[in-house]
């Protein structure tokens, strides 16, 4: 260990290389974190543009802008890009930037693999997006790609989709291995597991989830590939296969996947709330145990996505009860955040605004999740806009708000400049209002009976769809403001102190702002 540290010391004087090769060849966790974050923002804009196409078509009943065939391609790519290109790489980028600094490590444990796991991602999405220009069009079977719609009945581009999912999976697995090895081996002396910052804990758990389920996804798409090209019948009923098997495999991946997209958010929000409440986080130990229980439970609830496939009664009951149980640890987290604010000394800078909105809106998403767990009621909710409202509430004002909060919170440390607080607050209020205008009415549309993935709809759903579209465009425009704020901060601004926030705790605030290219070449002292 110490030999490695001394080696690093010699390289110190170099700093980053110049030009494009700096980014291509970099093994520096901060550079790679930056790459991940910019990449995910680009994907967020592309996926967002697709959402605008979807919402524009749904502005009024009737087909106006696109054909149903293309509409299905849009919903599919929107889902895939936002999940695999937007949210996941953003969290990996944050992990790259923050995990080494939070545990007092000089870099990630496997820096070359770190470079590889980022640089294969653009190719994965290039392949996926290029399918838009192929004969037969892009994948059109929804991001859940249920067989046999995604096998026997799929456009030829499905093979490219499979290949690109494999690359994304490989990238995620490498990223996860890197995080685990780093956290397990490179913590500064004195940082025991139960002293780790919660963001580090949340990522440790997330990384284990990724390693457990990404291979399952790879297995599912490989079986599809075999069915399409090599004459097998895993999912083809006519050949003795089982279309429902696909859904079991997919959701065994898919449910832990949704927690992969929210656990790091829990970590981020915990840091931000304790900082701006100027009070230690309430119930640190119970927060760790809650995340662990959520992660473990995530492996035994997958079939709640499939209550209508005709499972036996015993299975429906089991998955209903197991799913309801998740409300307990999730509730513990929310209560802990609220109690952290209680008797605090709170100020509302932009990160705190996003974090507060996260707690409220994520909880609303949690309530609708609890409702969806109730099987008889789910027979009415399933595959309607109620579900769309539910998962957008946990993903947009949930995961994505937490990412934005993280950017505002740590960007002074990354760039050495403070962001423009007035613009940040404006961005928050625009996003907060528009996200609710967009997604809250979707609860109504869903309960009133509009199924999801419909390019056109009956007249009784017209009004709230119109409202939702207006909200969506406002939300879209607000994110251009976010881009502007970030660019402005990168270029210049009020210089940030090392501490940045009065109430901030953690090793990352002990280094200079901006953080030097190499930090903690010798491990810090921690009591």
């Amino acid at each position, binding site marked *: 260990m110490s030999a490695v540290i001394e080696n690093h010391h010699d390289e110190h004087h170099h700093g980053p290389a110049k030009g494009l090769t700096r980014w291509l060849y970099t093994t520096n966790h901060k550079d790679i974190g930056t790459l991940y974050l910019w990449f995910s923002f680009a994907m967020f804009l592309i996926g967002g543009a697709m959402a605008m196409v979807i919402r524009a078509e749904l502005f009024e*009943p*009737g*087909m106006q802008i696109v054909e149903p*065939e293309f509409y*299905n391609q849009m919903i599919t790519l929107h889902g895939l890009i936002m999940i695999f290109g937007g949210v996941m790489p953003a969290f990996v980028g944050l992990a790259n930037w923050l995990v080494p600094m939070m545990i007092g490590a000089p870099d990630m444990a496997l820096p070359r693999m770190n470079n590889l796991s980022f640089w294969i991602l653009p190719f994965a999405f290039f392949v996926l997006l290029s399918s838009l220009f192929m004969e037969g069009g892009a994948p059109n079977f*929804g991001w859940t790609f*249920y067989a046999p*719609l995604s096998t026997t*009945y799929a*456009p030829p581009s499905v093979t490219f989709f499979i290949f690109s999912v494999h690359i994304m999976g490989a990238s995620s697995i490498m990223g996860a291995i890197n995080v685990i090895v780093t956290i397990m081996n490179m913590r500064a002396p004195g940082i025991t597991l139960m002293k780790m910052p919660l963001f580090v804990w949340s990522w440790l758990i997330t990384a284990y989830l990724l390693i457990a389920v990404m291979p399952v996804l790879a297995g599912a798409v490989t079986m599809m590939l075999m069915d399409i090209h090599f004459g097998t019948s895993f999912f083809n*009923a*006519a050949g003795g*296969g089982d*279309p429902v098997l696909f859904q079991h495999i997919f959701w065994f991946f898919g449910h832990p996947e949704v927690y992969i997209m929210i656990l790091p958010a829990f970590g981020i929000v915990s840091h931000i709330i304790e900082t701006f409440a100027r*009070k230690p*986080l*309430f*119930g640190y130990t*119970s927060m760790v145990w809650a995340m662990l229980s959520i992660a473990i439970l995530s492996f035994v609830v997958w079939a709640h996505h499939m209550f*209508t*496939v*005709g499972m036996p009664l015993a299975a*429906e*009951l089991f998955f*209903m009860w197991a799913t*309801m149980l998740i*409300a*307990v640890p999730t509730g*513990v987290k929310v*209560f802990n955040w*609220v109690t*952290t*604010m209680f*008797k*605090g*000394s*709170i100020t509302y800078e932009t990160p705190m605004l996003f974090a*507060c909105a996260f707690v409220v809106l994520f*909880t609303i998403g949690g*309530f609708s999740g*609890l*409702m969806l767990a109730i*099987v*008889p*009621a789910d*027979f*009415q909710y*399933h595959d309607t806009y109620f579900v769309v409202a539910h998962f957008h509430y946990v993903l947009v004002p949930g995961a994505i708000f937490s990412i934005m909060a993280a950017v505002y919170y740590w960007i002074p440390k990354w760039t050495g400049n403070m962001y423009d607080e007035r613009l940040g607050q404006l961005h928050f209020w625009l996003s907060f209002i528009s996200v609710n205008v967009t997604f809250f009415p979707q609860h109504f549309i869903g*309960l*009133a*009976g509009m*199924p*999801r*993935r419909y390019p*056109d*709809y*009956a*007249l*009784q*759903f017209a009004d709230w769809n119109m409202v939702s579209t207006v909200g969506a465009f406002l939300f879209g425009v607000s994110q251009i403001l976010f881009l502007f704020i970030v660019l402005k901060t990168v270029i210049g601004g009020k210089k940030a102190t090392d501490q940045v926030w009065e109430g901030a705790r953690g090793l990352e605030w002990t280094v200079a702002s901006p953080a030097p290219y190499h930090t903690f070449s010798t491990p810090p002292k921690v009591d």
Partner: protein
Amino acid sequence: MLQILKRSINKLIITTSAFFVAIFSNNLNADWFALNMTRGSTAVSEEVFELHMLIFWICVVIGVIVFGVMFYSMWRFTKKKNPEPSDFHESTKLEIAWTVVPFLILIFMAIPASQTLIKIYDDEEGDINIHVTGYQWKWQYEYLEDDISFFSNLSTDLDEIYNLVPKGEFYLQEVDEPVVIPAGKRVRFLITANDVIHSWWVPDFAIKQDAIPGFVNTAWTVVDKPGIYRGKCTELCGKNHGFMPVVVKVVEQDEYDSWVNAKKEEAYKLAELTEKDWTAEELSARGEGVYQVNCVACHQVNGQGIPGIFPALAGSDIVMNDKERNIEILMEGVQGAAMNSFDYLSEVELAAVITYTRQAWGNAENGDGEIVLPKDIVDYKKPKI
């Protein structure tokens, strides 16, 4: 200058108010107040609705308490009002309380939920058993006791969908032939699919069951009130997923009986047609209708298909010159492709639609122009020795 500014402000006000008038004037048949789940029309749907409301109100109460404490803290403990934060960051008692209390609330919810579910899962045979099959993009209904079988297609006009004419009251919620069931009888639906996965949903009965190829799922209902009940396909099944509604017509027993008799009569007349001497024109004319219902979604009105996904029929060598293979494809489908067997159509319909495709779009002029008679289909169906 002031004039221009004034004018543009006026313009802005007019367009904005036009927008809001459009929203609030209850345009078309839109319904501002369709905010909640339907109560439905059966005992089960009633119970599901009550369950939904129970859980909803529990969530509301929890939300009011949690957000209440949160908003109070956000307001009361700002840096201005409380410059010295407390160090209160641990309490085993609190942690135990907010683990145990939610757990008890969950049990309180799980009991009625499980009871209702068990009721729904009662799998007894029905007085009437109807086999429901999902196709891309229509539903087939087969009455097992009465040997009746028919397809149910969207009847909304394409011009309405493409905004060329005003939309009707039941836009996208109307079909050419609804499934008819008698009031007060236990009806069991046996639900499956022929191609991809669909899902058969009628909100008023609280029935949503996936239609999965190779599986038969069951659902049952007893509807007391005659009327028309509308539902939808709720599993993404390809491009016309949004265009294959479900319409159930519930009628009194005697009306149901006469409907059954009429359907049987109709089937008998169709069988007679098979024997008739058909001309190319007659078959083509009839075939065009069959094509509009069954083929047009993929192969398109002009027979050009969609490049890369659905092959063109216009100018196709098989359609122009290979009658035998043409019949075979219709009867057997194409392995590994979206083209399924259409052997469920009647002999007349099959002969007519094949003849239509062999005559239309210049195919007759460019190919052999041979027509297919119902008899050819009957011959094809005979066991081959």
